[in-house]
């Protein structure tokens, strides 16, 4: 069967109907992983023993494929009575997977702050809380903004994985068209172009954001 442009164009609306779901999943996954990542990093810094345990948990997450983690959450949790809707499993899976990376981002974000800042904060007499809120956090946020943007793009590109657990995002919809019409070429090309356009444009936005933050950092 050769490529049929007319058919490819006719299924674009079907695929785009999943765009909202795709974006929603990416945003939720980003938030989820940011929260989890921050918790991991905060725990790691607060207590030596816990730190090693957290390090191991993160290493485990990063040493296993996302696909397998999704299968695990999808098939195993119900066995213990926790049946979550597929989309929740998907967001949870993505959040856990990227939390490891984001913990590293937070770590680098904090490590990127010159040690002088911590010492100066202590010297000036700020309480720990004040030091965190007014000295560390703003600098950390600036350090992590660009990587966070990149992880949003990564999460967006990971949403197709959720098709294997039957979530109706764009890639899954394309696959459904494929198995209904027996033509996979056109849906895959269509969804590929859509994702490429999305990923490149959002990456550009992130780069602009990064540039603006760099500029504001110069004094």
């Amino acid at each position, binding site marked *: *069967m*050769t*490529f049929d442009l007319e058919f490819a164009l006719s299924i674009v609306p079907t695929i785009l109907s999943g765009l909202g779901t795709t974006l929603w999943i990416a945003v939720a996954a980003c938030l989820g992983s940011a929260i989890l990542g921050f918790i991991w990093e905060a725990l790691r*810094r607060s207590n030596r023993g816990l730190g090693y345990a957290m390090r191991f948990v993160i*290493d*485990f997450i*990063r*040493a*296993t*494929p*996302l*696909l*397998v*983690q999704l*299968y*695990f959450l999808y*098939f*195993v949790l119900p*066995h213990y009575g926790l049946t979550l809707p597929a989309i929740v499993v998907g967001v949870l899976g993505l959040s856990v997977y990227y939390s490891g990376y984001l913990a590293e981002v937070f770590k680098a974000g*904090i*490590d990127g*702050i010159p*040690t002088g800042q*911590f010492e100066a904060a202590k010297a000036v007499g700020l309480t*720990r809380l004040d*030091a*965190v809120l007014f000295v*560390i956090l703003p600098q950390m946020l600036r350090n992590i903004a660009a990587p966070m943007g990149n992880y949003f*793009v990564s999460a967006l*590109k*990971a*949403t*197709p*994985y959720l*098709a*294997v657990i039957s979530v109706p995002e764009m*890639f899954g919809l394309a696959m459904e068209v*494929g198995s209904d019409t027996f033509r*996979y*070429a*056109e849906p*895959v*090309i269509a*969804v*590929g172009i859509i*994702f*490429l356009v999305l*990923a*490149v444009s959002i*990456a550009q936005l992130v780069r602009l954001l990064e540039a603006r933050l760099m500029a504001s950092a110069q004094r």
Partner: protein
Amino acid sequence: MDFTSILGGIFEGLRVTGIVTLYGMLYAVPFALVFGVLQYFTRGTVQWMVTAVIEFWRSSPVLVLLFLLYYALPSFGVNLSSVTVGSMALGLNIGGYGSQSVRAALQALDRGQVEAGKALGLTRLDVLSLIELPQAFVAMTPTFINQFIQLVKGTALVSLISLTDMTFRAKEIAQLEYNPVGIYTALLFAYFIICYPATIIGRRIENWLSAGQRGNRDF
């Protein structure tokens, strides 16, 4: 089936996992090096074209790339073997990311090095190959180790194009008997015991390289 036999069944897929990882590295490393250097080195339209190639492989979701090569290419008369499809899609996708690390490593070098080289009368290409690359190589090594780990994890996806890797074997066992807990736990474990040692080695190297960055940032 008990846990050990499940694990044994899963490891029947280790050969395919290994082959796809190996071929994937053969695509990833050269691509990252060549295109990273090209992107760093060139300007204008050529750089734009190089960037376009990198962006295609890097910004497309890897699942989309996989299905494109597997299902869409035959519509255009190109029939690649499943192993080629798997290793190309994974390898070039990861190579795309790698090229950014290569470029960043080159950009992080002191400009003075380049100027000194030119002052000594070396051609631009010699400067690149004798001065910049060797120094950047040190910074790139963690990247290549990371690419290896990413590849091993990525091979789980080739199960979706019917390659009999570890994930595929796990799903095969799952078709024969209902035991999600045993099977998917074993599968996570299987990937972990391959990737975790690599992670530790990578971390050792990274620590060794960044010895200068340490300081007291506990708070």
